[in-house]
């Protein structure tokens, strides 16, 4: 007869670790194939314009990415030692959360972090996001970099996310941030900024972004740290601190 508290056989001794191993294989397999499908385990491409010898670095999350230029929307000190390039979607609820985190980062790292905003509207999920990206570019065209960021702050402040923003509000937002409403509406009906947004989308895809927010922290020596998703302030801060140590 078999008993519960029976002898401590070899079988019994080994079954617990074997069971954990089996479960680990299932879960690990799921994660491995999930990550492989996302392309997250392929880190062999190098960053455009990055210094040579990067492969010797302890963190080698190199990504292919367009260099930061004057055409970018930059918040904070443009010459900051650390650049955080964020690919974002105005109708993504996680981008909305991450926007607040990034505002805090730029404020607290006074002059040490430049926040670079690039568009990655996920039109499959958020059909309104592309037009909102165009709207933000119209704000930038008519009111400069400051108006772009005020517009961005405002849209994230009021959108319910997931295509919840009523587009009749876009001219209201433009007026709110000090942009001429009529000129803004005319701009919004044109397609002058589509190429810019398409270029950002291509850049995001080239950088292997699989969703938003997708952030690449670039250290002073060119090393890159990829942050997926709306990580909390503490996590972003820790990675920025690592990047600042790289000089």
């Amino acid at each position, binding site marked *: 007869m078999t008993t519960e508290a029976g002898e401590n056989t070899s079988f019994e001794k080994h079954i617990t670790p074997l069971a954990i191993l089996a479960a680990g294989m299932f879960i690990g397999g799921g994660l491995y194939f999930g990550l492989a499908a996302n392309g*997250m385990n392929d880190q062999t491409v190098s960053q455009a314009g990055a210094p040579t010898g990067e492969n010797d670095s302890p963190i080698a999350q190199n990504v292919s990415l367009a260099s930061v230029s004057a055409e970018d929307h930059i918040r904070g000190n443009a010459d900051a030692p650390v650049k955080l390039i964020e690919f974002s979607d105005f109708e993504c609820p996680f981008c909305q959360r991450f926007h607040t985190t990034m505002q805090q980062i730029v404020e607290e790292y006074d002059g040490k972090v430049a926040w670079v905003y690039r568009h990655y509207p996920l039109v499959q999920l958020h059909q309104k996001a592309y037009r909102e990206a165009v709207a933000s570019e119209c704000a930038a065209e008519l009111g400069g970099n400051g108006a772009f960021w005020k517009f961005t702050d405002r849209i994230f402040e009021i959108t319910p996310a997931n295509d919840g923003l009523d587009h009749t509000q876009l001219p209201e937002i433009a007026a709110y941030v000090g942009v001429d409403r009529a000129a803004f509406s005319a701009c919004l009906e044109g397609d002058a900024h589509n190429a810019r947004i398409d270029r950002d989308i291509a850049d995001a895809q080239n950088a292997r972004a699989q969703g938003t927010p997708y952030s690449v922290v670039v250290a002073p020596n060119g090393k890159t740290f990829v942050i997926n998703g709306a990580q909390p302030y503490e996590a972003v801060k820790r990675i920025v601190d690592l990047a600042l140590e790289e000089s």
Partner: protein
Amino acid sequence: MGVAATIARVLKKPRYALLALATSVCVFLLAVWAQNAMLLWDILISGSYRVSTKATIFWSFAQSITTNFSTLAAVYIIAIAILLGINLALVVFYIVQRRGAFTDAGPTGSAAGIGGLVSGILGLGCAACGTALVGPILGLVGAGGLLAVLPLHGEEFGLLSIALLLISIYLIAKRIQSPLVCPIE
């Protein structure tokens, strides 16, 4: 004895409670760290950082359950982690309890043992599939758009995993309850 009482009986044993807890914590951490697995792995194996720095970074990323998941997703990740822990503890208990059935009781006993194992392992496998595999595979086969069409944008698979785990736990608990007897032919 009911299913709940059986689960309680197993989890009252410290060894199985510890196994369930350890599994749940591991699954939860894997789920919240998975999205940044490469970054965290590189930090883990780097010789440039103190252990305390690494621990702080891992802990900070674990807190993403509050920022990087919808309320529904956070709830089902925690539920899946807990259910997986219970499921594994029950499977191990079942194997230990019936270890003789695999070897001594002939084909009938073996079949009963394997039946319990399959229901338990299916629960584990389905949870892994639901949380990590289905979305990327749909993307690979060009059916990523399907996720956009689904009302919960793919979170249905997490809910499905919970349902399958509950069924698996129910089946394995019933197997544990069934008496070890030789059936009359």
